């Protein structure tokens, strides 16, 4: 009797297994880090944005060219003075707990970001003065001062809508592990430092555009390990393939590379305030210009990144809408002019200590720069620090110059003002130019992007003239995926979007 029961169980299991495999399609994605909190209000990581993109729909999104397109808001109108925007919301949308998304909910969400303790969205959207719900499906957002960049922020976590009822019920901690949003997938399981599993949400307003029943994200901080897991078949898609590994992935017929075109950049920020600053660099813009002129960005890109990044010297890479074409890209190296500038201000051998993170890529960049600028007469030393310690040292002004990457923002204002406008937290070098701030304020007040462009060109030229920061290169995020994963596109914000992505042949 017992053996018969066992046989029956085995037979049932054998029948059930292939059936489950056929109906359940899954994509496994390797991330560079653990996402941290999954509450859009408190999340602070780039990989967190990748996970949340599939779980939490936003008011607006971007298309593959970086244009802002409808998502939970179907249309919007800016007031003529740029101080308010009225957004029409999508009807019939429900959160993962079946509560409806409407104007009241959108208003409550924005207020939560502005008032919640520990909200990381507050500094981003503090230009908001008030939010009003007009009827069931319209909100009006009034601003303290004009800021068309607000919409770009709504394409990120500040625009993600969550069920406020679920947040109240779960509390801050539990909600950070299992947010209830209105995205195509709901968070089924989150094991910090291990995995995040998302399940299809059948009531999503565009459920049919998503082909996978299950999405699993796993963190693998080492890029080699991430790539090996892709090669072995454990993962279907990985982010941040190291530039030096790209050639080998391209040579593999089972793998594909998709490159994101985000306006990312890596810069050196100079400290312009005593007592810690290098005097020559703080006093003379010519010294900083000479430093920039002594760098051969093309060679740098070739040596360290096998030519896979863009050797730009603006916050936008060539080809990006906001790129200033009047300035040659890359800036040609001119050691003779650099030397002449140094002689002109009477400092032929300025010294500089460059603070960098222990990231091996940055260590290579710093050493190449060190050798290049030495030819112009600079005596540069390198100091390495763990990333968080480096950031803290920079925030405390305890540095002469430091190298830091930015993942890039789709709106030009956010790509400049967040680290160089007078008095902002990330402006660690304490550069302050009324001229630049004036241009940035002007740019924020204009909604038409063709009219905005000349303003940001002038802003970039001002930065290049004063050189409180210099741009070294524009990095590009490369995704590696199996050839069977089709329809995957690189977006300008470097985020994985699963809409329209499929795995062919049921594999």
């Amino acid at each position, binding site marked *: 009797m017992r053996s018969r029961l066992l046989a029956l169980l085995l037979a049932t299991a054998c029948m059930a297994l292939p059936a489950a495999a056929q109906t359940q399609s899954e994509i496994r994605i390797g991330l560079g880090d653990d996402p941290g909190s999954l509450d859009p209000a408190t999340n602070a990581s780039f990989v967190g944005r990748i996970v949340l993109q599939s779980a939490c729909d936003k008011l607006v999104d971007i298309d593959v060219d970086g244009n802002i397109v409808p998502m939970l808001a179907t249309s919007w109108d800016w007031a003529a003075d740029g101080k308010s925007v009225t957004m029409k919301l999508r009807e019939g949308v429900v959160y993962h707990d079946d509560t409806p998304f409407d104007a009241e909910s959108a208003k409550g969400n924005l207020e939560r970001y502005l008032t919640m303790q520990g909200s990381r969205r507050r500094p981003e959207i503090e230009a908001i003065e008030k939010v009003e719900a007009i009827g069931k499906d319209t909100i009006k957002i009034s601003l303290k001062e004009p800021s068309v960049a607000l919409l770009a922020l709504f394409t990120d976590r500040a625009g993600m809508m969550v069920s406020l009822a679920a947040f109240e019920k779960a509390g801050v901690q539990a909600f950070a592990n299992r947010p209830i949003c209105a995205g195509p997938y709901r968070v089924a399981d989150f094991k910090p430092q291990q995995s995040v599993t998302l399940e299809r949400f059948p009531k999503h307003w565009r459920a049919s555009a998503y082909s996978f029943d299950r999405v699993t994200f796993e963190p693998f901080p080492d890029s080699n390990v991430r790539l090996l897991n892709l090669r072995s078949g454990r993962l279907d898609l990985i982010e941040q393939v190291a530039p030096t590994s790209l050639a*080998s992935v391209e040579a593999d017929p089972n793998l594909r590379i998709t490159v994101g075109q985000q306006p990312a950049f890596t810069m050196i920020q100079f400290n312009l305030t005593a007592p810690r600053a290098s005097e020559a660099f703080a006093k003379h813009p010519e010294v900083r210009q000479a430093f920039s002129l002594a760098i051969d960005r093309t060679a740098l890109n070739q040596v360290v990144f096998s030519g896979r990044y863009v050797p730009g010297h603006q916050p936008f890479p060539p080809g990006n809408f906001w790129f200033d074409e009047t300035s040659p890209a890359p800036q040609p190296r001119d050691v003779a002019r650099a030397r002449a500038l140094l002689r002109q201000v009477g400092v032929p051998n300025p010294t500089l200590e460059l603070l960098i993170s222990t990231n091996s890529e940055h260590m290579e960049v710093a050493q190449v720069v060190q050798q290049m600028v030495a030819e112009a007469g600079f005596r540069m030393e390198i100091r390495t620090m763990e990333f968080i310690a480096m950031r803290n040292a920079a925030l405390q002004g305890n540095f002469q110059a430091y190298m830091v990457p930015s993942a890039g923002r789709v709106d030009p204002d956010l790509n400049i003002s967040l680290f160089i406008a007078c008095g902002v937290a990330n402006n660690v070098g304490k550069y302050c130019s009324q001229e630049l701030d004036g241009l940035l304020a002007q740019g924020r007040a204009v909604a038409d992007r063709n009219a905005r462009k000349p303003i940001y060109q002038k802003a970039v030229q001002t930065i290049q003239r004063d050189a409180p920061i210099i741009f070294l290169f524009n990095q590009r995020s490369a995704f590696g995926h199996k050839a069977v994963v089709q329809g995957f596109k690189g977006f300008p914000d470097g985020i994985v979007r699963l809409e329209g992505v499929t795995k062919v042949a049921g594999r």
Partner: protein
Amino acid sequence: MASANAPAPASPGARVWRRLRRRRGAMVGLFVILTVAIVAALAPWIAPYDPVLQSWTTVRKPPSAAHWFGTDELGRDIFSRIVHGARASMLAGVISVAIAIAIGVPLGLLAGYVGRWVDVVISRVTDALLACPFLILAIALAAFLGPSLTNAMIAIGVTATPVMIRLTRGQVLAVRSLDYVDAATSVGNPPPRVALRHILPNVLPALMVQSTLVLASAITSEASLSFLGLGQQPPAPSWGSMLNTAQRSLTTAPWIAVWPGAMIFVTVLSFNLLGDGLRDALDPRSR
């Protein structure tokens, strides 16, 4: 008369050397250590290239006649960097151990010989320091002092000190109750003289063995700290920092990681082999 014809008794040093020579592992270890030490001392004359000079046209080239160990991610000669990196490793090992001995042995001697509250204070502080894992403590200290090879050596030395204190104290406690110490005290020798002339020399063998083992872990710690960016600062070479930058090219240019990895392995193994051999050779029970 018979005693006059017998060979003169060998000195303790010669006896230890004779016993050590019989242990093949220890001799291999000693040979490797001496080689690395000579290479480190003569680095500028041995290295065929400048270890920090980049050559952007010969990036990530595999081993060849021109570059025996290949070139690294910035076109620098790996052999030259390994040779110069040996300096950082040997220096870190020797200086860290010297710091640990300079602080640890006097404190251990004091705790063991004086006893009472002095022993209680020193021993409890030692216990507290030993409760923290070696590398974690070294990382914390190095981070606190700021990143540089000198600070890394200080951090490693201070971290290795508690082991030296405890070992010295234990040995002193074992030796101080022996008859010859009582005799030295009873003939009127002052306590400092008893401690330094009669106790310390008998504690030395155990300290020598421990020093070789601490040297090995100091070299690993220096590599770990440099790997984490807390030791030798770029572009100066260190085996640890070389391993860090090699990470990026692990699949495409594995030789960049293999050489520094192999050197750390071989050097640390050699110190451990020598330490084991010394322990056996210094043990009066072994013949």
